[in-house]
């Protein structure tokens, strides 16, 4: 693993061209537009998973291509993944703990009258 590479520090550039970067930017913009459409379309049960998947795809595109993770030494990906995976896991765990909290007996206001669902 050590000293395998004097390559990769600074002098080798990712192979992406300006044209390709712009195409990636356009793709990102298109996905955002689709997201917006989905949030207004009222697709029912698949709406939230769909939105989450699209935002994850955008996240992945930016990380892999704009942040050059695809072309970097794998140590960078590993380091970043530690943070992403742990943050996601803890987020899910905390949410699961709170959203299934049988002991939470606070009385929340009934808002079925005052405000209809947002969209």
């Amino acid at each position: 693993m050590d000293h395998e590479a004097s390559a990769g520090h600074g002098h080798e550039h990712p192979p992406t061209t300006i044209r390709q970067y712009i195409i990636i930017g356009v793709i990102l913009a298109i996905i955002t537009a689709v997201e917006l459409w989905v949030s207004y379309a009222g697709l029912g049960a698949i709406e939230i998973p769909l939105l989450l998947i699209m935002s994850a795809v955008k996240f992945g595109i930016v990380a892999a291509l704009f942040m050059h993770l695809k072309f970097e030494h794998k140590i960078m990906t590993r380091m970043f993944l530690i943070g992403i995976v742990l943050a996601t896991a803890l987020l899910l765990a905390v949410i699961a703990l709170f959203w299934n909290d049988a002991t939470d007996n606070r009385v929340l206001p009934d808002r079925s009258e005052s405000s209809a669902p947002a969209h």
Partner: protein
Amino acid sequence: MAAAAHESGHHTSLGVDNRKLLMWIFLASECLFFGTLISTYLVFKGQSLVGPFPGEILDIPLTSASTFVLLMSSLTMVLAVYGAQHGRLGLMRGMLLATILLGLTFLGFQVYEFRHFGHLGLNLGTNQFGATFYLMTGFHGTHVGVGVLYLISLLIGSMRRSGLGKERALWVDTAGLYWHFVDVVWIVIFTIVYLIPE
């Protein structure tokens, strides 16, 4: 230039630059920072005792515009990195400037949004939505602000006679990592706060 051989970017165990590695590990740490803020937001989602409630005041078209601005700033940032790596200094400076302006535009949107919400009666202490929303988006905005300062320093540095030195590509690349990260965090926040219905 025998002295150049000791430069900290060289002779590393993995052949990668220390500063870039530092930035990536720092970003891993930042994931936990924003992860906790987002967790808090989600824990208190729908737990506000009094209004204004998010569905009543969030302006999705407006924020879509600011989201688009930040997304495009990622594109200009990556083109600045391209310019730095290929020695096209004009491209680099132009794109750095564009990124800075787009970042400031995003901040302008946020300032407007915060003031607007304030007029509608949503303050930090109003309800759980206000507290979690302002804290999360506020810290994101702070990160954008720090990023703007970071890029302005690079731009000024590149104007000096010595430019950014022989490690120009690395400086801009590392700043770009930070900038893109702030962008991807917004991708997540935008989805969770604005797009997913209450």
